[in-house]
């Protein structure tokens, strides 16, 4: 990878007390990871493997004590606009219109009105929501809401965009459209992205690199590079792309072995 590392994680481990038993749960074990500029890294793993915990730590929503995590060379301490998050669902504000949701980050930064308006329009157009600027979220479909969520995060211009299973809650047809669109948006904005998913296909389709997490405690089990130019990543072409199918099958094998292995990890 060219460019500088935007996210550096060194020896990150995490324990938390179980809500009911109070016992210490070992969620993450000694994670080392670097994500470079304009790179799309997808983390895939079985449910409960700690991948969402990992994202929450990077987002600054979960305090950590063991190891280091830095964005642009600065240690992560709490949430900040340098790390924008797209959550699974229902994270845009119901009391703000589409354009006020998208411009929220700029508004919090007291960006001048004209500038905000211009940028908001740019991202409204980018995610294909022209004409819906003044609608409230309850008037939108699930897929449109997630488009707003993506635009809201991008409009705030973060160093890295963190995505936590953003398309898990929409129907299969919409998911495919959103994945295609995300590729287009990533090409246009050249963002650095950390993407969490439990869908192997999604990880292989979107990621420049796929990190497979082991079962709890989450470790980096392996790393697969997927060398397909982003411009070629469209679902209509992918079924016949051997690079994609090979990567998908390899990741699927790795994840499946994690799910079926019964030893206590």
């Amino acid at each position, binding site marked *: 990878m060219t460019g500088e590392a935007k996210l550096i994680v060194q020896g990150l481990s995490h324990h938390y007390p179980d809500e009911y038993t109070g016992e210490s749960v070992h969620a993450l074990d000694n994670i080392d990871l670097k994500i470079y500029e304009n790179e799309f890294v997808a983390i895939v793993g079985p449910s409960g493997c700690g991948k969402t915990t990992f994202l929450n730590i990077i987002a600054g929503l979960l305090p950590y004590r063991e190891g280091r995590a830095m964005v642009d060379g600065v240690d992560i301490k709490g949430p900040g606009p340098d790390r924008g998050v797209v959550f699974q669902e229902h994270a845009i504000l*119901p009391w703000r219109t589409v354009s006020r949701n998208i411009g929220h980050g700029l508004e919090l930064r007291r960006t001048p009105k004209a500038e905000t308006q211009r940028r908001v329009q740019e991202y409204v157009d980018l995610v294909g929501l022209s004409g819906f600027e003044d609608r409230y979220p309850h008037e939108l479909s699930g897929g449109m809401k997630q488009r707003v969520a993506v635009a809201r995060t991008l409009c705030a211009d973060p160093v890295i965009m963190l995505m936590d299973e953003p398309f898990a809650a929409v129907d299969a047809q919409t998911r495919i459209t959103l994945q295609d669109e995300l590729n287009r948006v990533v090409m246009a904005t050249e963002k650095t992205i950390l993407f969490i998913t439990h869908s192997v296909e999604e990880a292989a389709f979107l990621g420049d690199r796929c990190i497979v997490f082991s079962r709890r405690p989450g470790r980096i089990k392996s790393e697969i590079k997927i060398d397909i130019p982003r411009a070629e990543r469209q679902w209509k072409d992918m079924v016949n792309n051997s690079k994609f199918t090979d990567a998908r099958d390899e990741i699927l094998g790795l994840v499946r072995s994690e799910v079926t292995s019964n030893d206590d990890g």
Partner: protein
Amino acid sequence: MTALTDFSISIQRRFGRQRLRKFILGLIPFALLIGLWELNTAFVWFDPVEIPPIADVWEAIFWLQSDCPGFMAAVDGHNSCQLSNNILSSIGRVILATVVGVPLGIGFGILAGMNRTISAYLEPIGVFMNSVSGIAWIPLAVVWFGVGWETTLFIMLNTIFWLLFFNTMMGVRAVPKVLVQGVQTLGGSHLDAIRQVYLPGAMPSIITGGRMAMGFGWRALIAAEMIGGDSGLGFMIFVSASEFKTEEVFLGVILISIIFLATDRWILVPLEKWTIERWGLVWKPT
């Protein structure tokens, strides 16, 4: 006939068929009640001292205002404008208690909803205060503040505050955490989260609390005026009843209902429409 049809069509255009139907159905019980009332006047089942004729109740308005020098004097609270003075004094106390009690209740409710330590302090006393009916404080308030506006204001404030406190706290707790996290990851501060997430997010619950506060607050106020007040509609009803001026009592009761209905229709309902309905936070029958 055509005039009537035109009229009915124009009403339907304004309200819509369903709403017109609802409106008319809602009016029927009132019409029945008024009909029975009129029949009572005709057949005198009950003595006029017990149930006065509608005309007498109507006339009581003018009788009570008969010494009033005019509209401006009534607005100024001239001594001889009995009815308008009592209305203004009740409404004035409702406004004062609302202006003080609502922001305080919402403020403490937000703090308690966000912070477990604060709610650990305030929740038990809140449950205690809410379990004691507002009017149970009247005798004590009379001892503390004497007969007058302080007692009635205290009773109403006490009722409003705890209801809003509780409902706001519950509303804030029901705000999905991910909405707050969303604002935090966009660079929002705690204050931003309060203003832009917790407050609007708790709005459905706050409006419910406002409804309850208005209902219970009005009732407590009327009771407080009867026992510990020296003015207001409750006071007027109480004095009139002791002098067997039943038409004034009827007038007072009707006025209380109308004023209460007006606050609900003209303040709480529009607020609801403008906020939680517009944001899609309210369940609507389709």
